[in-house]
């Protein structure tokens, strides 16, 4: 009987979310927006890379020759050494060139390095400046070496390149590209979990507030226990979220198939990677897409997926029950502000700690500790998992997460039980603490 009622509530909550117009729009439009955004970024960065900057120069130093200012793929040089610097500025401005490089007359190479200037209307891009710097540095270094009587030919012959090949003890080779893929996978998973918790947690909260303001809540809890109503709501909303994930995965898969035909890739290989939507776009964009896909397939995708679901559910249950308690404590959404900070904070910390530490040192102290703390572990642990985490750490982290969410749900239910029947009361933390003991 109790299970039946819980089922009824879950079904109602699920349908209420899924039938909502904004859910439908979100589900079908946002993947399109995401693909559009990626395409736009790719297009823009490509076109800015292809753009040729016109740079004029006035070289009074006599250290350089015309050969030192050869046009490159991105820079076209114009020699204005013949004119005065102030006149050159005027010319550059009038003809709308991208900038003016000024090399003053100095006695030594060392002095030159400090005194070169670049004039422009707008702040120039870092790429342009660093390629100008590289060029000048190169040329000056060579001149300096000549001064120091260093044999340039021998120096060139001695130029070597070391490439360290990565592999683990069982002999599996890996590459830096794979490291990048792992980072992308981990970050993507952690970020998705955070976004989902915030979006769907807020949904649970709004739904609680709606029941409170429409005053139906007392009718409902004369038939079911408040705890059942709360859990039904949390689970039903999670169902809507999982459905959304599923639809997104299918859409991503379809787009990937379409994309792989477009890029002429082996579509069978991409079929198998469809489980990891965050990574597909990257793989498509990479030139060695085939290699990347092979590398991805070597990762323990299935167990990663299981861990993702477990940590995701644990984190969602933990936070959404807090959201439900907050919703029960207030009369409208504006009153939730004061309680939102402590909820969003650990999620943000999780993501930023993850971004900052996991990339550099996935098994360092900070990353390990934050992947154990239940309020950040769903995010940080998921970021670490692609790098291979000892099973006992995952188990311990999950265990702590489960213990904590059981405790938090228990406390949240106590607040919820009292809160849903409380109207017109300005609630603070002291009040909430009191409710826990009613």
């Amino acid at each position, binding site marked *: 009987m109790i299970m039946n009622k819980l089922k009824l509530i879950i079904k109602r909550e699920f349908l209420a979310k899924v039938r909502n117009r904004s859910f439908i729009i979100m589900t079908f439009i946002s993947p399109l927006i995401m693909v559009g955004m990626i395409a736009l970024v790719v297009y823009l960065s490509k076109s800015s890379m292809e753009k040729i900057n016109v740079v004029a120069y006035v070289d009074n130093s006599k250290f350089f020759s015309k050969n030192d200012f050869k046009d490159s793929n991105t820079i076209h040089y114009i020699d204005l050494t013949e004119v005065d610097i102030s006149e050159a500025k005027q010319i550059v401005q009038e003809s709308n060139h991208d900038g003016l490089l000024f090399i003053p007359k100095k006695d030594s190479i060392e002095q030159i390095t400090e005194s070169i200037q670049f004039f422009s209307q707008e702040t120039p891009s870092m790429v342009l400046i660093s390629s100008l710097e590289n060029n000048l540095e190169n040329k000056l270094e060579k001149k300096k070496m000549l001064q120091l009587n260093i044999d340039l030919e021998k120096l060139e012959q001695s130029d070597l390149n070391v490439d360290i090949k990565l592999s683990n003890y069982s002999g599996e080779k890996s590459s830096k590209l794979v490291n990048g893929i792992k980072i992308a996978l981990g970050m993507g998973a952690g970020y998705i979990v955070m976004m989902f918790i915030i979006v769907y947690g807020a949904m649970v909260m709004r739904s609680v507030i*709606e029941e409170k303001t429409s005053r*139906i809540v*007392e*009718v409902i809890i*004369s*038939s079911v226990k408040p705890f059942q109503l709360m859990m039904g709501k949390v689970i039903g909303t999670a169902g809507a979220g999982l459905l959304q994930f599923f639809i997104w995965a299918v859409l991503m898969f379809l787009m990937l198939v379409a994309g792989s035909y477009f890029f002429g890739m082996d579509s069978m290989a991409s079929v198998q990677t469809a489980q990891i939507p965050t990574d597909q776009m990257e793989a498509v964009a990479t030139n060695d897409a085939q290699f990347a896909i092979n590398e991805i397939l070597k990762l323990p995708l299935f167990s990663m997926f299981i861990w993702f679901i477990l940590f995701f559910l644990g984190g969602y249950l933990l936070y959404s029950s807090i959201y439900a308690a907050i919703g029960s404590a207030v009369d409208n959404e504006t009153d939730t502000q004061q309680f939102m900070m402590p909820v969003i904070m650990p999620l943000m910390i999780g993501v930023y700690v993850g971004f900052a530490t996991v990339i550099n040192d996935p098994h360092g102290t900070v990353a390990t500790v934050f992947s154990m703390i239940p309020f950040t572990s769903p995010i940080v642990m998921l970021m670490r998992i692609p790098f291979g985490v000892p099973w006992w750490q995952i188990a311990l982290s999950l265990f702590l997460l489960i213990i904590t969410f059981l405790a938090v749900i228990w406390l949240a239910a106590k607040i919820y039980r009292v809160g849903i029947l409380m109207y017109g009361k300005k609630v603070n933390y002291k009040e909430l603490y009191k409710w826990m003991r009613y």
Partner: protein
Amino acid sequence: MDNILVTENIVKDFGSFRALNNVSIEVPEQSIFGLLGPNGAGKTTLIRIINQITLPDEGKIFFNGNALQPNDVHFIGYLPEERGLYKRMKVGEQSIYLAQLKGLSKNEAKKRLKYWFDKFEIGDWWNKKVEELSKGMAQKVQFIVTVLHEPKLLIFDEPFSGFDPINANLIKDEILRLRDKGSTIIFSTHRMESVEELCEYIALIDRSNKILDGKLVDIKKQFKTNSFEVGLVTDEKDKLLQEISQKFSVSKAEFKSLEDDLKLRINLSNGDTSTDLIKYLNKRALINHYVEVIPTANDIFIQAVKQNS
């Protein structure tokens, strides 16, 4: 007569505030039981405890002779004072959902809803969303949902608020009909005229304590002041008034009559009976009006609360 609901020494504290202090009531089967009290007295808390929304700190509740069980919610229907429906859900779907939560099957709920919707002539609302209904319309749906599972015990908290007089009458008739069919009704209200009209039993709660309960007739007897309203036809009103005043405590009374009579309210506090009074008056004037003053529910409410403070 058997009691369908008995509460024994219910205590409920909210922090340091005691909302209910040893409250015991007995609700006889198939009666209409008025639960009265000023705002904030603890009525709603008691009703929520009966509905198992809130748990009592101390005390026992018996439903139909047995300790109250979680499943007993299927035999109780509750219309809270603060009530509402899911605004964005359709009327029919929502009614079925709420009925299912009370333990009805989907088909049974549909069948019964059709009956009630036809009866209230609101069949064409079935596919409307609640937000499209007026307040009175939503209240009708709410009433139907409350009684749909034919509960043994119905608890109405201010059932007539939000209804126009025509619909209030409709609801009142339905409440009486439900009582006649075997339901017991607990009725919480501030409107004393409906208490007077409907309630057979009452309990009065004031500042967390039950200060009065029983059959309304018995309570009225208990509260009667042994006063009588009389109209006396006489030529010498002043002289008569003076004479009567010496023997009884007398005050002016107001009522309608055809004669220009002396209208008095006479209080028999000195052990005289009604017969003595009639004999006494009969000798002195023509009695054209003689009635015992019965305290109204309103009088009792105000007096009891005043005495308690």
